[in-house]
């Protein structure tokens, strides 16, 4: 399953969504998620879904690529939905609505990752929250952490795969045996995984230090600049949230 994770992976494309300023996209995702939490009716849920569908279409990321990466999460959601249906009175309707909203949140945040490189996201976070520097918040360091985390998700996933393969070839079978045996088996994967992650982190720290991290006030190769597209996008984002709030107030 790990092999198929596309969460946090960038999909290179030249689209309207890809070229937006990362700050705009971060704000957009935040508003979408806020909207999803506000909306509790079927109509507003469908409205949100249409908005997200429009964004996916604009981003020109193949839907198949997006969905494939989310498959493990859908399995999990299906289990939750079934439990809801069985255990909660009037569960069918609520279960569907809740699952739908979770799917919306996942799609919205996944679209951000697919259309924005980790460095851009961190750049957006850093520039967007630069005012917090006055409150002694280490904005630059936090943004760097975010970007490294995103960069290393696929690398660590690949590594986990490799270790799993290596242990399997030595006779490890994750599917056989009782709980104790299975737990032991996963330990034999998790420990080497942990060791290698720490080693990588240590190496990366040295690499960053020797490349003058923390030398002074850093600049950016591509300083962020808003364009007219961003203005248009902000208008859409605010309109979306307004509509959702109006629906809530109007009990639609």
């Amino acid at each position, binding site marked *: 399953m790990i092999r198929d994770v596309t969460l946090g992976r960038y999909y290179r494309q030249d689209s309207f969504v890809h070229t937006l300023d990362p700050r705009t996209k971060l704000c957009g995702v935040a508003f979408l998620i806020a909207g999803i939490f506000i909306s509790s009716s079927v109509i507003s849920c469908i409205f949100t879904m249409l908005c997200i569908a429009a964004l996916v279409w604009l981003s020109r990321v193949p839907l198949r690529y997006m969905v494939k990466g989310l498959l493990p999460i859908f399995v999990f959601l299906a289990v939750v939905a079934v439990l809801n249906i069985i255990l909660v009175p009037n569960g069918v309707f609520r279960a569907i609505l809740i699952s739908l909203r979770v799917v919306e949140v996942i799609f919205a945040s996944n679209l951000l990752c697919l259309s924005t490189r980790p460095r851009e996201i961190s750049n957006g976070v850093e520039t967007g929250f630069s005012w917090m520097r006055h409150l002694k918040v280490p904005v630059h360091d936090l943004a760097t952490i975010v970007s490294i985390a995103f*960069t290393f998700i696929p690398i660590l996933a690949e590594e986990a795969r490799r270790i799993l393969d290596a242990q399997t070839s030595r006779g490890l079978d994750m599917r056989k045996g009782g709980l104790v045996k299975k737990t032991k088996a996963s330990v034999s994967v998790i420990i080497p995984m942990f060791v290698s992650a720490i080693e990588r982190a240590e190496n990366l720290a040295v690499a960053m230090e020797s*490349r*003058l*991290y923390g*030398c002074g006030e850093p600049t950016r*190769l591509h300083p962020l600049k808003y364009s007219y597209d961003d203005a248009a996008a902000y208008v859409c984002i605010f309109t979306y949230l307004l509509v959702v709030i109006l629906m809530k107030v109007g009990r639609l």
Partner: protein
Amino acid sequence: MALIEARGVSYSYNGKQALSGIDLSIGSGQFVVVLGPNGSGKSTLARLLNAIILPTQGEVSVDGHLTSDKASVFDIRKTAGLVLQNPDNQIIGDTVEDDIAFALENMGLHPSWIDSIITDVLEQTGLTAQRFSNPRELSGGQKELLCIAGILAMKGRCIILDEALSMLDRENRNLIVDLLHRLNRENGLTVVMTSQDTEDALDADLVVVLDDGKVVASGKPEDVRIVPESFASSVASMLRERNVAVSEEVVSEDGLLKALSKKGAV
């Protein structure tokens, strides 16, 4: 005055001695190869020269600055950039240009300046076509080139490479070695390279052989006796592969590198 100097340097990891009594003097513009088997302390030495770690005894100076002097740490790292052993663990950016920009951004340079330096080093390393690629999609040799480019961008006088060649195949290896020699010849860049492979030392100005944390030999390649004999015989077999006639006696009698230069090989 020497560019890099180590005087009586020892280093231990939590009581475990990794280097002891190292004296080293590297002149500006030299091509230096530090040879040694696994665990002999090559990486430790490389990190000491870059002020990543500080000697437990003795002192290291780079361009007149002591590494123990906190105020000059960044000057030292700019003067002598360090390329680590595994490229996968030191690529930070998610495009080639972003990765090269990392050090320059940290230096606080103006974007247009960063841009022109990137163009420069991409040309030097032959990666111009890969400027906007994802570093993870590069070949092993290209990744190594990228790591070198990231250090060259700082425009220091010296580059330290810790086993930069060990994971490469023959072709990529030659590519990197040629680049380093060209930079050394044409730009006067000081190169300090660690390696396990005697072959890398043949064209060096200075060879330093480490074993078990001590310098066991140093000098010009033709004067250096390779002390562990196992080392010598492995190179002898390599030479035979290349159709250079080497007799066992020459190897064990004179030390390998000397034997090589007698034969006029390479």
